[in-house]
């Protein structure tokens, strides 16, 4: 349904004597600008974007199915496990890895933080998945076929995006071969 923009034009501001009004608005606007500016400056270093970070597992699983791609479920704890941190920085966070034209699988990072607060739902979901896939060491990357079957497992592999993607692709190729037989 198209939105009706006309409504917003009908808002009438209460009439305030123009001088007082302009003074008021100017000072408010000024305060607001400074407020926003302060907020942006002070929050800015804390923000960091993680394109592949997606703790919403149901969404990733559905996307894997609808786009017919294998899904990598990565159980990692980057604030305590050094191999998880390495895997995250050397592979998952590389711009090359996010390049969807090169690597034909999805990634769902399941973070097990010790020092950061998370929502109880995320914690519960991640624990259930870890129990389901019997995760014992960190990091563990469970490779799932598009329909959700486990077809292999990976840990930390030195050698960056290329080495890791090659190992994941080998698992996927092997599983496809078996299916054809």
């Amino acid at each position, binding site marked *: 349904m198209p939105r009706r923009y006309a409504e917003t034009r009908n808002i009438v501001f209460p009439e305030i004597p123009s001088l007082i009004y302009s003074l008021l608005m100017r000072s408010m606007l000024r305060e607001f600008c400074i407020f926003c500016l*302060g907020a942006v400056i002070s929050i*800015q*270093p804390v923000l960091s974007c993680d394109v592949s970070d997606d703790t919403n597992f149901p969404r990733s699983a559905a996307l894997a199915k609808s786009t017919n791609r294998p899904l990598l479920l990565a159980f990692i*704890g*980057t604030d*305590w496990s050094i191999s998880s941190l390495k895997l995250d*920085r050397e592979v998952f966070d590389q711009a090359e890895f996010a390049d*969807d034209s090169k690597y034909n699988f999805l990634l769902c990072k399941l973070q097990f933080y010790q*020092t950061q607060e998370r929502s109880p739902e995320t914690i519960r979901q991640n624990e259930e998945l870890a129990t389901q896939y019997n995760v014992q060491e960190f990091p563990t990357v469970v490779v799932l076929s598009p329909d959700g079957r486990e077809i292999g497992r990976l840990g930390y592999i030195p050698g960056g995006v290329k080495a890791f993607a090659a190992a994941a692709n080998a698992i996927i190729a092997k599983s496809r071969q078996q299916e054809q037989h």
Partner: protein
Amino acid sequence: MLRPNSLRHQLGWLLLLVYITLRPCYAQAQQTVAQLAGKIDSELAAILSMSSSTKKQQLSASLLQQLTKLKEQSIMVFGARREQLEEKLQQLIQSCEEWQSRSSDEARAAAERAQKLWSEIKSLYPKEALQLLPPLWSCPMHQELMKTAAGNCPICGMPLEPIYISQPQLTESPIIGAEILADGPLEVGKRADLRIRLFFFDKSQPVALSDLEETYTRKIHLLISDITETDYHHEHPEPAGDGEYAFSFTPQRPDAYRVWADLRPVRTHVQQYSVANIPSSAWRQAKLPENEAENRRAEIDGYKFELSFEKDVIHERDTVAGKLRVTEPDGQPCKKLGVVMGAFGHFVGFGDEFVTVLHLHPTGPPITDPEARSGPELPFYFRSNKTGLFRLFAQVKIEGKDFFPRFVLRVQPLQRLPSL
């Protein structure tokens, strides 16, 4: 209410916001399993040699506390292992209580049982859960790189930055604030003498030069730009006492100016920017041109400056090798690039929200010989974690004169899958 330079007012807001955002950093950091296990290790090691009952009581209480915390923090043990872990922790707590309340032989047996249980408990954890993360440092351009000490990047020579999760005592937010003191408003074409006051946020104490570390031959770099990001200045202020530093520049535009002080406090060893506006009556009169076209060429006094990158499109979070090529007015390649602040050139980029700053340096170690010359190409690495337009200024010195060619770069978002 409408004083154009109500600096105190602005500062109040900023301080309040900074306080709000910094507050969690000062809260006590949560202890990890590895830290707790280390404490429990040493306490259980002392258990056999202890006899005084008050000390026993103290130790037992402390053990109980650590074990409870450990149970809460053990987010990396699941399923059947988790059940075993909880059972054994319960038994361990019982043994500790027995050890504390019973006498001689029985206490000794309880203590030995506790130690045995503890080693069984430890075997239930993933290996790395019981190892402390060492302090780690990484390069802003090559984040896959991790070193256990501060220093320079072996690939591009830029100073390494800490990985904060391994050093929670360091903070990502600036610890130093800045304020500009001016006698009057700026005037186009007229040299303005200003002072910048630097102060620590936590105690509002003035920042002395000895509180700062040197980066690229100076302790304070001031990056100054107007709101349209066309008139850029790089200044090094001189101490004027009591946390104040004097500098001057000649504004070329009638717009509002902002200063980013590039600092590295001794307290954190971490580079930070302290931002302050130059008081101005022209605040927000001009706007940053939207949709300005990308531009990788510039010309000043006949010298041609050309940027090129190894990739046609620059994506966010991607480290891209770039080159600045300088051509003389007569068309010959320029080989006379002199040394500015320990390098043959510097790059400063401003984001399109007038907040983000990128400070890039050419590849390679610092140049110590002031007579050294280079050219016509200056290699460097570019990386931005933010998308959008960046106004990138190069700073090079040719025959004693500083040049600041301006380029416009677009940083594209990474490719993403279609949403459901």
